[in-house]
């Protein structure tokens, strides 16, 4: 670091400016109060029998014991797993496919590539709650629902969307893919843009088919972007709460109740802070695991560069 000449008029500002402490202290303070302290508190609450409103509580393992012996937790975890798995696969594959289609279109100088890009990114600017509303209206099962009537037109009748358990989960996943593809697409797109044309042309000269070119040249070149993309999709989907809230509220029954929603319901509907915190702690563990993976991939892609 460059040493500046001692300033004769050493005021408060310049003295403060010498070390990093004053520059980052406000930030660190905010993060300590809103992230570090609450995180420890959630973990602490998960080992208590506290209720949301009451003052007294005692320490116990009962939340975790109850959770582990309750079949509902396995239902929630399974629902969450299915929701996350298919959402992430859908978002990543669709995002990559659209990015490839746009890049290919740009190579062929087609019109409309910008339009497709904007349309795909549209959902990103829409609040999650409203995405839930949009899909709920779109999936209206009465005769006046648009999708229902379109399916009728091609002879498919008696469809259920949000009213039966299985199809509700499928619909929630599709709505979530609709929501999350924007980020996947733009990441894949910018990854594809970094591949040098020489490499692709060399593959062409070697007589590679487009499929071989995709598998052996394109995908390996953007593998680190794709891994980061997958992890971000996993984190976002695990944390999804707003869209599910307005789309299904976890129903019918608890067929679309994902982990974040269970934690919320336990605490703010059933007033059971201890047990809800135990669910939140599980979510926290998953967040932490994914963050660790993310760091690992970031470091690896940093070394490649």
């Amino acid at each position, binding site marked *: *670091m*460059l040493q*500046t000449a001692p*300033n004769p008029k050493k005021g408060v*500002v*310049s003295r403060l*400016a010498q070390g*990093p402490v004053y*520059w*980052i202290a*406000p*930030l660190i303070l*905010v*993060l300590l*109060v*809103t*992230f570090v302290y*609450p995180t420890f*508190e*959630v973990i602490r609450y998960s080992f208590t029998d506290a209720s*949301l409103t009451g003052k007294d509580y005692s320490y116990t393992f009962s939340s975790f014991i109850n959770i582990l012996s309750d079949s509902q937790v396995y239902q929630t975890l399974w629902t969450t797993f299915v929701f996350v798995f298919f959402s992430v696969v859908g978002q990543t594959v669709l995002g990559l496919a659209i990015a490839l*289609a746009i890049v290919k279109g740009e190579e*062929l100088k*087609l019109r*409309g590539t910008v*339009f*497709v890009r904007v349309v*795909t990114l*549209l*959902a*990103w*600017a829409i*609040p*999650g709650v*409203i995405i839930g509303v*949009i899909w709920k*209206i*779109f999936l209206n099962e009465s005769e*006046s629902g648009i999708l229902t009537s379109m399916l009728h*037109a091609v002879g498919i009748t008696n469809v259920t969307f949000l009213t039966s358990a299985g199809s509700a989960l499928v619909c929630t996943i599709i709505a979530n893919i*609709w929501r999350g593809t924007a980020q996947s697409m*733009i*990441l894949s797109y*910018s990854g594809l843009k970094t591949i040098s044309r020489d490499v692709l042309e060399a593959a*062409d000269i070697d007589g590679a088919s487009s499929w071989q070119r995709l598998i052996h040249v394109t995908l390996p070149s953007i593998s680190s972007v794709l891994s*980061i993309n997958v992890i971000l999709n996993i*984190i976002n989907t695990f*944390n999804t*709460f707003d869209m599910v*809230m307005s789309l299904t509220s976890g129903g019918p029954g608890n067929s679309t109740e994902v982990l*974040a929603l269970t*934690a919320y319901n336990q*605490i703010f509907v059933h007033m059971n*802070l201890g047990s809800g915190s135990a669910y*939140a702690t599980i979510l926290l563990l998953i*967040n*932490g695991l994914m963050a660790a993976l*993310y760091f690992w991939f970031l470091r690896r*892609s940093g070394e490649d*560069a």
Partner: protein
Amino acid sequence: MISKSAKIRASIGLYLVYILISLFFLLPFLWLVSLSFKTVPELFQSPPKLLPNQFNFDNYRYVLWKTDIFGYLKNSLIIVLVTVIGSLIFCLPAAYAFSRFNFKGKKMTMLAILFFQMISPLIVVIPLYKYLSRLGMLNNYGSLIFVYIAVVLPFAVWSIKGYIDTVPKELDEAAAIDGCNKFQTMCMAVLPLVVPGIVSVVILVVVKSWAQFIVPFILLNDSALYPISVGLVNLQSTADSITTHYLAAAAVIGIFPTLLIFVILQRFIVSAMTAGAVKG
């Protein structure tokens, strides 16, 4: 190298793909817009028409003047504005320090900050609810906006540090020789050069805070204070008084501000969305 007929075939295939993609992403959204212009008889028409008979704004007028939407919009505007200003105050000096100072534990601190971005706001809001209710600070914009700021800070610090990293350090040295202290160097020499980056971050902060749901949903229970996201769920749950065409109009109103920003400032958004993840 590629024959002309192969090129035409590829183009036709791509256009088919484009049409399918556009249908999937536009249809649910356009259906919402269409419903927002429909009258009650049109609403129950079967089979439904894709377009409304005429574009009348009655539903919008009703939603704006007869429901609480207007107040929700005003609340969101206030919250988002203060969040943007507050997050810049906290993040600009920190981002500058992370870019320009060398100190022990810098890397660890940066990683810890990134880690917070991965944590669901739900987890931190649970104890904050308990804590703030004991202090009597629920339904309080001060504490609410504090949490809003904290939620966007990790991402904002990382992005802006990335933008400052692209400014050569020689510039700081020149400013120092000219007699600037570090604070002046940051404000007058470095930050003006990263304005496009700051704009990108501000847009993302606006969109994220406009969409923020969990934090106000839990920390507010006075409906007069609700932002638009919570207000809409509130409208939706009182489904007796509000039917689908009103809900659709309300949803379009709720989307409009961020969508407008998105369409106008798309260039900045693409750069902001990719900055963190691709460069690392």
